[in-house]
């Protein structure tokens, strides 16, 4: 199937700004699904609110565009009712880890079979460039005219500690890795977290003098490296890309089904 068949072409051109990384994440995601040969009816995509969350409007799957920070809660409900479906939840960094932080850690703790994608542009794009828990220190934002003082979460470490059984990171520059990792995350049975560093040229780029979209994408090439590479040993500031965790542990819906069976037997 051509990947355009997964798009709701009637809503194109999409509303994301020129060069917004979120479109690249969508592109990589659809290629992963195409490669897996999945049909539209097997997939439910659930999102919250944000520029990133607009993604559900553009894909011809079952889609739910819900409320800010709560996409994982809605997705949990869908998955428990229809465990045979594949749940994909793309989120912005604010959506996933500011207002949605609690849902995020508990979905990870339960190891429910959902693929969470954090489209991390380190800023609130939709509401005009406020800083987020992933901005990190010394970042200029609408709400930080004198630079941020807050340290950032490390999505990978947080997801690991909370119990996610698949944890990976990549960037929009590394577009084939985006597809490859998202494909593996979808196949993984359990809670999968894929962080994709994504560019917001309109707010993050402009406020932080990171240049245009092209410069920002090239930054991702310069500032990242494969897990455990020699470059990382020489320059600890480089951000690692790849799959950090991939383990099999009991999945929440399967455990729930076992409990239902016990209850039916009255034990």
């Amino acid at each position, binding site marked *: 199937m051509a990947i355009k068949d997964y798009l709701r072409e009637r809503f194109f*051109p999409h509303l994301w700004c*020129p060069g917004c990384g979120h479109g690249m994440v969508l592109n990589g995601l659809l290629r992963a699904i195409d490669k897996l040969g999945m049909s539209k009816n097997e997939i439910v995509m659930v999102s919250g609110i944000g520029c990133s969350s607009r993604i559900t409007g553009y894909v011809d799957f079952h889609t739910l565009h819900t409320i800010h920070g709560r996409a994982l809660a809605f997705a949990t409900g869908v998955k428990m009712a229809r465990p045979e479906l594949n749940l994909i939840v793309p989120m912005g960094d604010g959506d996933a880890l500011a207002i949605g932080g609690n849902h995020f850690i508990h979905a990870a703790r339960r190891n429910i079979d959902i693929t969470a994608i954090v489209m991390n542009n380190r800023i609130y794009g939709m509401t005009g460039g406020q800083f987020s828990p992933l901005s990190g220190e010394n970042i200029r934002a609408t709400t930080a005219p004198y630079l941020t003082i807050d340290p950032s979460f490390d999505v990978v470490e947080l997801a690991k500690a909370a119990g996610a059984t698949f944890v990976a990171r990549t960037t929009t520059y590394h577009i084939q890795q985006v597809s490859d990792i998202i494909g593996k995350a979808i196949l993984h049975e359990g809670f999968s977290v894929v962080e994709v560093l994504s560019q917001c040229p309109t707010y993050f780029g402009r406020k932080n003098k990171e240049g245009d979209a092209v410069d920002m994408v090239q930054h991702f090439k310069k500032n990242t490296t494969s897990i455990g590479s020699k470059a990382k040993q020489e320059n600890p500031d480089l951000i690692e890309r790849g799959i950090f965790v991939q383990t099999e542990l009991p999945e929440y819906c399967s455990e729930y089904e076992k409990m239902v069976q016990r209850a039916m037997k009255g034990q």
Partner: protein
Amino acid sequence: MAKPKLKKHHINRDWCKGCGICVELCPKKVLELDDQDKVSALRLQDCICCRLCEFRCPDFAIEIETKE
């Protein structure tokens, strides 16, 4: 497998937003933005059909068609 040969760059001018990502990241510098900030394929003979332009376009505005 034989190397794929280029048949055509399909460009959707209504969707292209002129971000320049495909232009700057094409390994063979095949593409350029025209005076209306839309992508156009100029140096067709240099294209190696790697499809990176197609994979990276945030707007699904460029596609590579090949012949075997």
